[in-house]
């Protein structure tokens, strides 16, 4: 069934593919983010309750969603790397980690800025906030663990194990607003029922969520390609690549 996937286990092919993904996806990501942000920040109506400051939602929610999405994909990549011993997937784990960390930090920062006018405080030890902070530490842990070994291969596998172990945190973040009745508000976008926001606010948000996803995809492929070249620096195909670029 997945025969078409097999050639991409080869670093050379994977490099080509991820470069192509970056090349094609990045413009769409930029387009979505520009449209979504301008629509959200300028044209979307003012909220009757929160005034103008609700507009942070257009960055806060996508960053928060994809901070979890990135961790999940990192965990899956780590699991597959451990089970099927695919070395390129270890590089994928390490390619995702800093991007996810930045998304998490962005979600925390925008949340704090939003929290100040709405809740009257920058930070509370609420379940959602705390578990998101743990997520940030997990990302940093994966990254730090990778670089704490002299042997990249060992470091990569250790990072994979941590990525898999840490995935228990993702459902905790997701359900934290339902399990603990604390300060953070419930889900903004409901999946199956009618959305609780008016369409003029919902559309730019959805576009930005898509934009963040595309940005994540593009940046991951870019970092992945870089990691591939770094780890395969002694191989023939990299030398060929370098010569081509030099011309």
């Amino acid at each position, binding site marked *: 069934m997945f025969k078409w996937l097999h050639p991409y286990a080869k670093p050379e092919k994977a490099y080509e593919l991820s470069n192509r993904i970056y090349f094609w996806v990045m413009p769409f990501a930029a387009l979505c983010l520009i449209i979504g942000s301008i629509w959200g920040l300028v044209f979307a109506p003012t909220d009757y309750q929160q005034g103008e400051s609700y507009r942070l939602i257009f960055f806060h929610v996508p960053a928060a969603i994809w901070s979890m999405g990135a961790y999940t994909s990192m965990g899956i990549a780590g699991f597959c790397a*451990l089970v099927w011993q695919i070395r390129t997937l270890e590089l994928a784990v390490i390619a995702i980690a800093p991007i996810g960390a930045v998304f998490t930090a962005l979600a925390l920062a925008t949340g704090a800025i939003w929290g100040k006018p709405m809740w009257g405080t920058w930070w509370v030890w609420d379940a959602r906030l705390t*578990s998101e902070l*743990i997520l940030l530490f997990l990302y*940093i*842990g994966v990254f730090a663990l990778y670089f704490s070994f*002299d042997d990249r291969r*060992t470091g990569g596998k250790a990072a994979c194990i*941590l990525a898999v*172990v840490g995935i228990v945190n993702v459902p905790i973040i997701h359900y934290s607003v339902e399990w603990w009745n604390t300060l953070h508000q419930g889900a903004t976008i409901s999946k199956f029922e009618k959305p609780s926001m008016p369409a003029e606010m919902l559309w730019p948000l959805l576009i930005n969520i898509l934009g963040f996803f595309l940005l994540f995809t593009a940046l991951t492929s870019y970092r992945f390609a870089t990691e591939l070249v770094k780890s395969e620096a002694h191989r023939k195909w990299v030398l060929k690549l370098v010569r081509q670029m030099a011309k």
Partner: protein
Amino acid sequence: MSYFQYFSHSLKRDFQVAATQKHEFGLPLIFFVLVVVLVPLSIGPEANLLSRIAPAIGWIAVILSILIALPRMFSEEFDNGWLEQVFISGHPSILSVLSRVLSFWLLYGLPLVLASILLVPFLQLALSTWWVLAQTLVLGSLLMTALGSIASAMLLGSRKGSGILALLVIPLLIPALIFASAAVDAAAQGIPAQGPMLMLTGLAVLGITLAPIATEHSLKLVMS
């Protein structure tokens, strides 16, 4: 040899080795006492305030003390080749890992839990609250040992051990800490603490069941 026999042999061996190096076990305990002593010195000897923060201090001191002991969980066995023997012996190595986790908890975790009774005289903690605190610490230190075993195994081959160990273990412990503090708070106010206690038990059981698998994997990785 049946699995149970092998397990109890491993456990017995851990204790025999431990009996030859008794000086090692005092260290985390002394550290625990020092942390507890530092608190009234730094915050002032105000009885109400001290008894209010005593459970938190107890938990934090236990976490730090276990973190001090954790790098020692597998390091000696790794250095003298015992671990390698375990993995090529043909016996299920997960049993050895499990026995090491258990013996580590009995040797380092349990004494710390018992030492937390020092909070009663030092920080004016109520005895009934201490009883709940000790229960949460039993479960919490089990979870800490289980999760810490993964990190400890992982960092055997690494250059910079303990700093990263804290970074890996503490984030995973925060949920347990939240439930423990909820339980102790409830006990201090005289409300039944069963709900958070059960959650904590669930976490501890989950940790002890699943963490040794990851630990075994990390050990294999370090030795390959």
